[in-house]
């Protein structure tokens, strides 16, 4: 369980303070995967660093299992974190990196071999981490987060740099960890990735929480759906549907009907003898919903006006 209360972080800058995290409140519950979603510069990493006691909040607080991170008697056995794949000395082997981490928190060294096997790095465990690909570095970071077998796991952009197989693996791992009753908190700037991984969604933009709801709720609220109709006599169809008080609009050679599912629309029009060429339920993608929600809060825009959501998270 992670709980933030009025959590605020301001960074001093040349033109006054920049507010990275603006008084946010949230709770990350155990037993489910909570996705922490937001465009670059939204405050995700800053929030995660504050959870881990690396950055001090300007005001407000964040606790893990009811206390500050630094107050944990053995933090790695309580919360495991992947911060970014580069928080590793390039000259040290993967196994040695895990060994010092284990030593620091009194974790049995047998865990080192176990997590190396779990993330699939046992064959390269003796190699210097500097030779690792970004994906291997991510796997090592995930291994480090699992080392203390912690009940709370925080992963900052874990799928960055992973190949499709690796992405599927992270997804499966997150699911397993949540099913075991752990608190799983995963950040991403990719809605499509979160849609496949998260049970619960925390959307952040410009340091504020824009949405805090279940994935299903988010889809229902933000991914608007309509029924698309193509018919030789569009005007007739429009008359019938409008007469039933439905929200109908014509876009090019199709009608868009809101407020009723495809079956209902089909039955209404069939009863009125309107011939249909197409009847489709169209659901706006979650990516679109996310873009819409965060459009005002995206830090950097491309010149086309489209939000820039790709690239590094920092």
């Amino acid at each position, binding site marked *: 369980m992670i709980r933030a209360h009025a959590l605020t972080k301001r960074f001093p800058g040349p033109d006054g303070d920049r507010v990275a995290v603006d008084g946010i409140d949230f709770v990350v519950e*155990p037993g489910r995967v909570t996705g922490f979603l937001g465009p670059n510069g939204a405050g995700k990493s800053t929030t995660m*660093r504050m959870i*881990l*006691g*690396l*950055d*001090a909040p300007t005001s407000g607080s964040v606790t893990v299992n009811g206390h500050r*991170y*630094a107050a*944990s*008697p*053995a*933090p*790695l*056995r*309580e919360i495991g*974190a992947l*911060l*970014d794949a*580069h*928080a*590793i*000395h*390039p*000259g*040290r*082997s993967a196994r*040695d990196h895990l*060994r*010092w*981490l284990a*030593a*620091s*928190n*009194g*974790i049995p060294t047998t*865990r080192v071999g*176990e997590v190396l*096997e*779990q993330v*699939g790095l046992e064959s390269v465990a003796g190699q210097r981490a500097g030779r690792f690909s970004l994906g291997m570095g991510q796997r090592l970071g995930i291994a*480090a987060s*699992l080392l203390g*077998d*912690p*009940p709370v796991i925080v992963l900052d952009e874990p799928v960055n740099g992973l190949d499709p*197989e690796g992405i599927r*693996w992270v997804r*499966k*791992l997150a699911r*397993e*960890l949540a099913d*075991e*009753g*752990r608190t799983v908190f995963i950040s991403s700037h990719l809605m499509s990735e979160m849609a496949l991984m998260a049970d619960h969604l925390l959307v952040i933009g410009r340091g504020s929480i824009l949405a805090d709801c279940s994935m299903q709720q988010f889809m229902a609220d933000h991914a608007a759906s309509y029924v698309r109709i193509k018919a030789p006599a569009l005007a007739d169809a429009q008359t019938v549907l409008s007469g039933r008080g439905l929200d109908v609009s014509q876009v090019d050679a199709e009608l868009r009907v809101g407020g009723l599912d495809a079956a209902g629309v089909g039955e209404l029009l069939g009863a009125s003898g309107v011939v249909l060429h197409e009847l489709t339920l169209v659901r706006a993608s979650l990516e679109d919903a996310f873009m819409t929600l965060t459009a005002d809060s995206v830090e950097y825009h491309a010149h086309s006006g489209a939000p820039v959501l790709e690239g590094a998270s920092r």
Partner: protein
Amino acid sequence: MSTTTLSAVTGQPPARDLTDGPTPGFGRALQAEWVKLRTVRSTGWTLLATFVLGAGLTILMCGLNADWLASPKADESPGSFITWGMMIAQICAVVLGALVVTSEYSTGMIRSTFAAVPTRGRVVAAKALLVSSVLFVVGTVTALVGYAGGNWFLDRAGIGMPLEGDVLRAMFGSGAFLAGIGLFTVAVGFILRHTAGTISAVLALMLILGNMVNLVPGTLGDWLVKLMPGNAGSAISTPVSFNPDVLGPWTGFGVFGLETAALLVLAWVLVRRRDA
């Protein structure tokens, strides 16, 4: 690709309370830092360079200067030559002290470190203790080997020195001086958080500024020379100092120790206050 579940691996349920297993304290932080120190190549190379330069240059300088030192023309004491290489070896101690700290900042690993050991003062203390212990041992051994080799040449010229009194003090003093330099640099490393910056700053302070303050006129200049960390600290590492104006070995080392302690306190305060 293995994707065994955690519970299958560990056979224990998560979300348990943390009373199982001992609470890690300073000893754990020290162990972690010890693993770190042993598992990067730079440690071995730096210590090897300390030994080769420290012992080798002492032997070389004693060998080359033995006859001159034995002659009536000599205006230096053989006691100044018997730990000659340590003047160069101190550069290696600076490099080791810097890398132990600043490599973590340059790679971002400091965040892993402070996440694992959130009581940051323990990290500073553990690094300081390890660097100074290792350098004390390596420095003393280096000085003793340099003495053994160098004194062989001095003996042949009839000016050999027994391993006692000031000579013996200079052996352990060399270890202590390197240890002090390591501590000094660890502190500067935590303050500056940058490898090149830390090494340049310490070397400039120890080697260059230490000599340049000679140019300050009057009593002020005399005192600055005495109090500069490199000048104050190095007297303990040699039986007879090249520079007759520096403080006595123990007084000087005390001054150097205070300066180092002040920097360590500053480092400790900054490390606790700053975001990682």
